Structure formats: C-alpha cells, structure tokens
C-alpha cells in the first residue's frame, strides 16, 4: 500500500535555494580545498605517527569526558534556570553562557588564575590533594568543560521550557516527591534535548584550542590534542598538519552522520 502513496514535490522558492546553496558552499569550499592539498601518498605514515595517535586519543578521551561532565553539571544548572524562581537567574544564565562569546584564550587565562599552581584555588588544591590541574590531562578536561558546558545548558534549558510543567504537576498530584518527579518525568521528557546538548558540547570540546593551550599547554603525549597538533605542525610539517586536519574532519563528520537521525533530531521526531 505504501507504494501507492503519491509523492508530490512542490516548487521550491528559487531565492531560498540560492542562499541555501551559498551557505553550504561557505562551509564546503574550505574543506574541499583541504582535500585537494592532502598528500595522499604519505597520508598513512603521517596519520599513524606516534604524535598523531597520542593526540587523537587525548582528544577523544578529553572531549568525551567534557561532554559527560557537562551532562552531570549542566542538567542541574539548566533545571535551576528553567524551573526555579531563584534570585539572580538572569545573571546566572549570562554567566553560564559567557564562555560561548569569550575568546577561549581569555577562558584559559582565567582558569590559570583560578587553578594554576599560584591560582586562587590551585595552590590549595595542590597542597590538600596533590592534584595539579594545569599542564595535565585533567586540565585539558577542565578547559574543554569550560567551553562546552554552555552548549549543553542552553539546549537543555530550552528543552525544559518546551516540555513545560504540566506533566510534572500531574506527577506531584499522584504523590511524587520533587526528586521522583525530576527522575521519572522531567529527565525522560528532556532526554532528546540532553542528547542534542551533549553532542554540541562534545563537538565544541573536540575542536577546542585556545583555552586548552593556555591552561594545559601543548605537551605531546600528555596534553596535546589534535587541534594543538595541527597548529604545531603547520609550521614544522605542513603535510602532517593537513593529515591531522583530515582526520578531524572525518572523525567529526562520521560521528555527526551516525547520530544524525536517532540523536540529533530526536526531539523533532
């Protein structure tokens, strides 16, 4: 029966198509230019070098860790912003989204002042726990979280506002405590927004450069992520830089493609 369904394609407004094509081109052309320059013969060597392998591993681990930390801390933040009338919510929202606008270098410097060895908290942290954040993989994760968290918070807050409180009210009349309501009603209803926000946060962390290099440095095998490796290689070994760039493009593109329907647009279904 489904074969009998007629597909009627309506005329596309020409103006829209032109601008849509221009928009796609702005992103596609530089990436194609990169492909043109790829030294295909030496690619395998460049991609499997120890430096690149380490950087890829560090990038994947730290960006995923930042996404997880963003969920754990960002969902409660989004809940406070969307569901409470806590005073200063406007200020809190501006503060939490600030890293989206702030140059990442500024974020990295701020992290250094806070968690550096002479930092406000860093000195105390080192003395009491022996943990040194700057120039360590923990520092990379912290820097990534700093820039990634806002993406999760605003996505989930939007999801919470869209879901509304009607079902939460119904749950309360059935005897559910606020915590039970949050776990059994609120969380499931914003699951698509959490997934979308986590992907955005992960993507932002995966490409992070400025805050990382400022706060965690550029130590190959310890804190050097793929973007840092590209930056270093651009001067020293251009072919390697292009190879790493290609790896980043492919990894990101494959992940976005795989998640496309199930996760990304889960809320639209």
């Amino acid at each position, binding site marked *: 029966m489904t074969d009998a369904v007629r597909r009627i394609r309506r005329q596309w407004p020409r103006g829209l198509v032109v601008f849509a094509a221009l928009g796609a081109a702005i992103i596609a052309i530089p990436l194609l230019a990169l492909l043109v320059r790829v030294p295909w013969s030496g690619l395998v060597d460049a991609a499997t070098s120890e430096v690149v392998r380490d950087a890829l591993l560090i990038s994947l681990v730290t960006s995923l860790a930042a996404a997880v930390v963003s969920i754990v801390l960002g969902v409660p933040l989004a809940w406070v912003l969307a569901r409470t009338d806590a005073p200063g919510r406007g200020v809190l929202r501006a503060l939490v989204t600030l890293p989206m606008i702030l140059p990442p270098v500024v974020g990295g410097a701020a992290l250094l002042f806070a968690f550096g060895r002479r930092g406000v908290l860093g000195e105390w942290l080192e003395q009491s726990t022996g943990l040194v954040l700057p120039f360590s993989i923990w520092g990379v994760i912290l820097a990534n979280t700093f820039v990634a968290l806002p993406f999760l918070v605003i996505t989930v807050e939007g999801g919470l506002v869209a879901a509304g409180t*009607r*079902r939460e*009210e*119904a*749950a*309360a*009349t*059935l*005897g*559910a*405590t*606020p915590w*039970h309501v949050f776990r*059994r*009603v609120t969380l*499931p*209803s914003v*699951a698509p927004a959490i997934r979308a926000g986590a992907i955005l946060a992960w993507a932002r962390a995966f490409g992070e450069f400025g805050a990382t290099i400022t706060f965690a440095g550029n130590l190959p095998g310890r804190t050097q992520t793929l973007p840092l490796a590209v930056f270093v290689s651009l001067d020293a070994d251009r072919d390697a830089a292009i190879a790493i760039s290609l790896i980043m493009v492919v990894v990101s593109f494959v992940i976005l493609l795989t998640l496309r329907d199930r996760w990304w647009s889960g809320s639209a279904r």
Partner: protein
Amino acid sequence: MSGDPSPSGGATSGDPSVDGLVVDAEIRRGEAEVVAAFSVSPGTTTALVGPNGAGKTTLIEAVAGLVPLSRPEVSGRSTSVRIDGRILDDPVQGVFVPPEQRSVGVVFQDLRLFDHLDVLSNVAFGRRARGEARSEAESIARRWIEAVGLGGAESSRPAELSGGQAQRVALARALAADPDVLLFDEPLSSLDVRTRAEMRRLVRTHLDALNGPRLLVTHDPADAFALADQVVVLEGGRVTQTGTPAEIQRRPATSYVAALGGVNLVWGDASDGRVIVAVDESATGPSRVHERPLELTVLDHEVAGPVRCTIPPSAIALSPSRPRGSQRNVWVTTVGSIEPMGDRVRIVLDGPVGLAADVTPGAVAALSLGPGVEVWAAVKATEIDIEPV
C-alpha cells in the same frame, strides 16, 4: 461555610468536625480573581459549573495544591482549603501542604499522561511514587486498567490511544493512587457524542465507588445534572448559586444558570398583570424589531415592582406570521442560532431579550427557520412564572 454546628471545641485547626472538602478561597492571578466558598461532603459529587474563564480550573488547581491561595484582601478574614478538618492551605496561618502530600487525585482536562511510559506504568505511577513495590503497584494498576475497560492495552503508549481511551487511562491513573479527594476537570468535553455517553456511565460508576469527596468541573449541564449531588455555579470568579441539581433547575438565580437548566430567565417590572421586560445589555443581534421593550401579560395581578420571569423554552411557539387566537404575548423577532438538542431543536431568538424556544425538527423545516429569519413568537400567560426579586 458553616458546616456542622456541633460544638466540638475551638481548636486552632479550625473546625475538625467538618468532614469532606471545605474550600473558602481567594485567588488572585494578574487580572483574574476568584473568590469562592463551598464544601463537598464525603461520598458525594459536586459539580462546579460556569462559563469559560469563570475560574473553575483555578479552584481545582488550588485544591490540588498547584496554585496557592492568595492572602485575603480584607484583613481579619481567613481563607483555607481543608480535607476532613486537615488544613492544606491557609495563607493567614502560613500553612501550605505541597500537592504530593495532599492525596488529591486529579483528572486533568488535558489529561497529562506520561508519554514516555506505557499505560501500565502510567496507572502504576502514583503507587510507585509512594514507594510501593513494582509487582504490587502493577497488579493494582492492572485491575484499574481492567475496571475502566482497557484490558489488553497495558503496554500501549499514550500516543497510540484514542481520545476516549486516553481519558480512561487518566481516570485509572488518578484512582489507582487511592486519593482522598478526586478532582475531575471537564471529563467529557473532548469526547465525541457516542464515547461521551459511555464515558459518563463509567465516570458515574467510579465516582459512586469513591468514599471521599468528588469535585467535577464542567460547562456541560448534562454532565453536571447527571453526575452531581450538588451544583456550585461560578460566574466571573464568584459563586452565584449553590444547590442540588433540582433546586438549580427549579430556581435558577442567574440567566446563565437558567440557560444551564434549559429555562429562559428574564427580569422586568411588573404591574397589574403586565411585565415590562428589562433589556439585556449583553444581547446581540438586530434590534430593529425591538424598538419597543417586550411587554408580557402574566396571570398574577398582585405582584408589582421588580420581578423575575421563568419561561420554559417549550412554551414559546413560533410561526411565520402573526398568530391568530387568544394569545396575548406575541412579538416579532429574528432567529439567532439553531442547535439540535436530542429530539428537539433549540432556537435562540435574537433581540434585546434573548430567549430560547424548543421546537420539533419538523417545525424547523416547515417554517424554513435559519439564522436571520423573521418569526413571530408567542407564549401563553399561563406558562410565565413570575417571582418578586
């Protein structure tokens, strides 16, 4: 509300001898204000009726704990929501019990089922929320699903259900939590006619089985009269009448209540067997034919001054031209709207005095009645009941 006059001691928690749901509320939200007092005895159903925007749902939400009472405007007055003497909300005493501690079940107008859970988990939700074991909660939920006629749909998602089925789930979900009070907001308004009659029977069965007070919000008089022991009429945020369905029908206090009970209600000035009917300012429609106020002849010659007249819609006869005969109350008017009501058709007559006339479908065809058609209306003096106000 006075409630039970038995002198059981002036406890600080008010009068604990009053059983059931006792509401004496003032709620202000923006422009809207609801000031209402009523009580619902255990094991009885009260229908809260009124036009849209009268504040019915706000009152339901106040009982459920979703909206707090406002501080009373007059100092010294105290307002509260109580169940069996237990104070749930009292702004003066500073008491507010959150919804999850009230044991007030609500069937919401928009149902609010949990889309991510199947029917079984929806119905078991209240018991699970209170920490009951899954197996126990689900076996009780299964019984309720069976009881509302949805056996077999346990693993369906709300999105897969029809409107009537979803409503049954909402009812089962509220009842399975074993509430002390049940609130039911517009239970049947979203259903088609056939499902409605079926659902009304079902609602009635389950309401009757509940020991606690039941409060039913509706704008449909049929629901109110079919399901309720007491009717509270709310208009513009105020209670305009409280009584049994029979009392409400027999002595409607406002024209809204009269229309509710299917009775025309007009006010006027009586003298010597005649009543000059007051013009209803809110009425719409062409007033050309009503340049003169409507004057009715009535039987009662004794009454003088302001009166209230009730005229059954079935007593108003319609004809295409001035009717011959002895009838004294004859006037020309135009048809405003036509609504089928069972085996009769209700014709709403336009003009400064909006009146409803019930005629047979045959008469509608014979008179070619339609909106804007000019007709002659006639009513016998014996059919008009007048009462001084």
